[in-house]
């Protein structure tokens, strides 16, 4: 890794990590006696470790070849591995959380292992740890390839990737210590939020600078999706996390807004995080890796651009559908509902576009589990966006809200769409990045695919059933006008579905473990694909799954 950096860049990296280590030390001193102090120590060790790793290799030989003849893939590689690491950890915690709901004894009576603390470890771990690292890594890959230009800079890609992972570590460890600002998907406290802003602005600048260097006049549509993801997430994050720390020596802060105002801000953030973190970014992945893997251009490129602008202009207004039947004014709820229904158009345009691209290549979908991951992801994208629009309708929401149906819907999107497109993209990109002949074991990819698909189906069906039963039980009245079932009755009815959910999650987790193993074995065991010509890098054309004859 270090041989691709010049001495000046290594010094710059040392300066940055040294500075960050000092910030960690200050946090540790000021936050002494508070959980913030622990975060100071974590930052100090993280940045100090980096400082020594770089410092150790400071005077190692400098790069000899002209670096501009190659793409800069080192940060991408590390990002893919980090993403798989977080996948295994966070999905493991997810199975544990699910098991706690079915069998509460799995709490083991420790404060840190209570449901309220480990559930955000699961959600942040999969969304930011697994999804975020995969987005950063693939965005580095896609922006370089589609621009036919090398990344702009050698230190800033590392700063973004590692800085983001420091944020993830601070978030997850904070939840276990009881630090939260109680905003879903935005739980970390003020100092972590400020750090993420710095990282994220650097990411945006890096993306824009690389695009500015492009040798291809046209900006490929995937880049627009990635750019929207980076820019909108920055704005959402800043507005929703506006808060006043109770003291600069402790983690606790108070939101700048209160009551229903705060709820509105939170769901304006929350739904747009679904839109621009969990949708736009992953659509960028889909629009690059699916045509690449299938070896054919996107069915209608025009439609892909139209759906991009559709998503950009419709999504922002949909958040208030999370607050039906609350103190939020009726017209705001109706606005959210209307835009949610309108969103079906660009969403299905993307899903249909992806499937039509594969029309005529079904033989490849049958034979290649990697492409099948992407195909099924597109199907689940279509399914869960339809379900989302449907659930946003106020009358449907009166049944579905506060029930497990919501959990089922979220996981149809998160497992079926986000995770499957990510795994498909990882399997497509790993042999290219490490210049390998192919994956270590196509059979294990096949196993992963079926475990992931069956796990998702078991999970989602269990939650649909339990959610609708729950919703119906809560609204059933006796003849005398009292509620027919107590809350405990509905809880007892949930038990079999909670067991099924744990099993579905365990299937999905074992698939992810197999995937991580397969990737590591590919890097360690598979023969390097030796170039036929004297190119500094190797042709992708020799890859079996991307036949040149197409």
């Amino acid at each position, binding site marked *: 890794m270090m041989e691709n950096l010049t001495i000046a860049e290594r010094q710059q990296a040392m300066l940055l990590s040294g500075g960050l280590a000092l910030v960690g030390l200050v946090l540790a001193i000021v936050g002494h006696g508070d959980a913030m102090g622990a975060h100071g120590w974590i930052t100090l060790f993280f940045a100090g470790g980096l400082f020594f790793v770089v410092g150790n290799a400071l005077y190692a030989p400098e790069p000899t070849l002209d670096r501009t003849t190659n793409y800069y893939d080192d940060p991408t590689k590390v990002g893919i591995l980090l993403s798989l690491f977080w996948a295994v950890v966070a999905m493991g915690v997810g199975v544990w959380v699910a098991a706690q709901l079915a069998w509460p004894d799995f709490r083991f009576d420790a404060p840190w292992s209570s449901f309220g603390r480990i559930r955000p470890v699961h959600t942040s771990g999969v969304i930011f740890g697994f999804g975020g690292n995969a987005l950063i890594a693939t965005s580095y890959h896609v922006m370089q*390839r589609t621009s036919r230009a090398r990344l702009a800079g050698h230190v800033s890609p590392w700063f973004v990737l590692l800085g983001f992972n420091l944020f993830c570590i601070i978030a997850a460890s904070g939840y276990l210590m009881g630090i939260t600002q109680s905003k879903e998907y935005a739980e970390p406290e003020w100092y972590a939020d400020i750090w993420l802003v710095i990282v994220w602005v650097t990411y945006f600048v890096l993306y824009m600078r690389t695009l500015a260097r492009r*040798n291809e006049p046209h900006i490929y549509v995937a880049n627009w999706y990635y750019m*929207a993801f980076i820019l909108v997430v920055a704005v959402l994050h800043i507005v929703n996390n506006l808060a006043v720390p109770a003291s600069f020596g402790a983690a606790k802060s108070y939101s700048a807004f209160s009551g229903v*105002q705060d709820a509105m801000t939170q769901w304006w953030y929350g739904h747009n995080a679904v839109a621009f973190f969990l949708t736009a970014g992953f659509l960028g992945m889909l629009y690059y890796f699916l045509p690449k893997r299938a070896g054919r251009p996107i069915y209608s490129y025009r439609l892909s651009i139209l759906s991009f602008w559709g998503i950009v*202009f419709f999504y922002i207004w949909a958040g208030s559908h999370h607050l039906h039947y609350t103190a939020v004014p009726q017209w705001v709820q109706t606005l959210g509902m209307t835009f949610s229904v309108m969103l079906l158009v660009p969403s299905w345009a993307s899903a249909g576009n992806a499937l039509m691209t594969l029309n005529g290549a079904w033989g490849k979908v049958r034979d290649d589990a990697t492409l099948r991951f992407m195909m099924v992801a597109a199907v689940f994208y279509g399914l869960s966006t339809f379900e989302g629009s449907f659930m946003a309708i106020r009358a449907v929401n009166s049944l579905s809200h506060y029930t497990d149906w919501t959990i089922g819907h979220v996981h149809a999107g998160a497992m079926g769409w986000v995770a499957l497109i990510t795994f498909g993209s990882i399997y497509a990109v790993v042999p290219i990045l490490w210049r390998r002949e192919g994956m270590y074991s196509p059979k294990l990819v096949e196993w992963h695919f079926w475990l992931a698909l069956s796990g998702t189906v078991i999970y989602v069906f269990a939650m649909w059933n339990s959610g609708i039963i729950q919703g119906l039980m809560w609204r059933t009245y006796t003849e005398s006008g009292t509620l027919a079932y107590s809350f405990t009755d509905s809880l007892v009815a949930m038990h079999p579905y909670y067991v099924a959910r744990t099993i579905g999650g365990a299937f999905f987790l074992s698939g992810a473990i197999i995937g991580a193993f397969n990737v590591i074995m590919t890097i360690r065991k598979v023969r390097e694909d030796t170039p036929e010509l004297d190119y500094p890098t190797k*042709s*992708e054309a020799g890859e079996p799954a991307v036949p040149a004859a197409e």
Partner: protein
Amino acid sequence: MTILHLLIPVTLVMGLTGLGAFFWSLRNRQYEDLEGDAERILHDDNDTPMPPRKETIR
């Protein structure tokens, strides 16, 4: 709902940014050859960047 005094302007600015980006893409002839644009990502046999343009060499 005083929060809307913040959220609506923020959202409108985001929308206008998007609109600006869209007009930029129109003016910079991003949509002249859509078939070619979709095809070209498939042709990078060497997986190497093109030599940098003059103005970016530092």
